[in-house]
């Protein structure tokens, strides 16, 4: 579904991503892990084109997308969240979400901002995530965790085929984490492809079908979670010994 080949991103002399290749299979949850500075988020940014890659290719559904602009990529069915939740202040949760509804052509542009069918759909999503009581709240007033959920909701509004989640568990307390894990799983079961960057090994081990490990901008291991966690290179570079803490 999503294939990344030989992706490179250099900042001046620093090679943040240095020839990284991996695939996220359709209908599966793929996790991208690695030590800090391994280039995971940079790779993420290059895939969603928030940053321009220095070289390399990104293919989605057989089409090349590394030359597209972010909104075009979103229109092709790839949506992402941000490590630090980005939401639009002074706009209600509903507006925040409807904002992400796809728009077609000039006529779409001048359509009413909040058409009933889209509002209904957004409410359906909020219902699904169990936060419909927040619909008319200002996006800025949400708590950290609620913002993460709102990010999710907005993501779903664009009818994505694949979603990229950047540290969905970062800074999230354990009970909310359980909730998020549940949502991701449910969405995946409904057929959504997921690519995830995360440090929480617990979440990774429980959710992902496949784990890609990055270090120093390159992929050092790629395989099912059980296999990766035994890989000595991974243990050394990333986990720092046996997996007991999580």
């Amino acid at each position, binding site marked *: 579904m999503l294939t990344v080949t030989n992706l490179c991103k250099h*900042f*001046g002399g620093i090679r943040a991503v240095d020839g990284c290749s991996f695939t996220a299979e359709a209908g599966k949850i793929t996790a991208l892990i690695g030590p800090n500075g391994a280039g995971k988020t940079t790779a993420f*940014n290059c895939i969603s084109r*928030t*940053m321009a890659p220095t070289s390399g290719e990104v293919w989605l559904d057989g089409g090349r997308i590394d030359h597209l602009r972010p909104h075009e990529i979103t229109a092709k069915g790839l949506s992402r969240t941000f490590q630090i939740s980005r939401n639009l*202040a002074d706009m209600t949760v509903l507006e925040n979400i409807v904002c992400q509804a796809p728009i077609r052509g000039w006529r779409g542009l001048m359509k009413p901002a909040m058409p009933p069918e889209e509002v209904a759909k957004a409410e359906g999503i909020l219902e699904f995530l169990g936060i419909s009581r927040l619909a008319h709240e200002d996006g800025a007033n949400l708590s950290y965790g609620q913002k993460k959920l709102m990010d999710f909701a907005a993501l779903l509004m664009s009818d994505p085929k694949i979603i990229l989640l950047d540290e969905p568990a970062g800074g999230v307390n354990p009970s909310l984490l359980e909730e998020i894990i549940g949502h991701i799983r449910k969405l995946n079961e409904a057929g959504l492809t997921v690519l995830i960057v995360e440090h929480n090994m617990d979440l990774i081990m429980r959710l992902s079908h496949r784990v890609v490990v990055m270090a120093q901008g390159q992929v050092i291991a790629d395989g099912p979670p059980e296999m990766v966690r035994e890989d000595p290179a991974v243990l050394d570079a990333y986990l720092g010994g046996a997996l007991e803490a999580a």
Partner: protein
Amino acid sequence: MAHTLQILILGLALGGVFALMGAGLSLVFGVMRIVNLAHPVMIIGGAYVAYWGFRLWGVDPLVTLPIAAVILAAVGVILYKVVFEKEAKAATYSEMTVLLTFAVAMIIEGALGTAFSNTQRVTSPDYATDAIFIGDIFIPTGQLYAGIVSLVIISGLALFLKYSRFGYAIRATTQNRDAASLLGVNVNLVSMVSFAIGVGLAGAAGALVSFVFSFFPAKHWEWIAILMSLVVLGGMGSILGTVVAAFLLSVIAAFVGAYVGATWSTMTFFLALFLILIVRPQGLFGDKPELA
């Protein structure tokens, strides 16, 4: 050939003055992220101090320079206390301060105009209209002195920023305001003092301007974009960059003025400003913009 050399000298001569005019602007932007559109009108304020000193008591503008700097620095302190201290926490801080300094510029212009009328002024110490001739080539002494004084002041400032403890605090505040505060730096004081220094530099520059250009309160509009071009080309906040940009653009403008036409020489600054913002927003010496 001699002609070309002469134009080069004239360009450099103007550059020295522009350097000091832009230095304070750059410092204030660096430390406080304030694009101080009122900087040029403050320069004019400094020029008035020099003018009245010269007119009433015949004091040389170079002697009034420190007084102008101190008076303007005091204005800076007041302005900081009244206007900018509160704004530091606003979400749209940088845009807000641009508009606010714009308003301040209008207020100061109005006040200066009410007090001194919009008559053009200039101080005329003897050296202002003299020149050192080397064969056919001349170096205007007014600009020469102004340039030397300007470079001395800027070097002093650079040394202060690099080696003094307060300069250390200023650099820390520039890079990470919260962090500096959490490590025992009184960032409000640092901001206030550096704002005062910046405005004080405007005062000092004003004393030089008083005999190099003629001035009147409304003249500052003409300088805003010129000074901005120096600061932006130099990389916002880099004083060294501002100095280099001042010399570079003044020389280019001098050549444009001589070979293309005098009406086009100021265009150099505006076009440079525009192009740099678009092509290399971080300027010559600025860092790359933060990553997304």
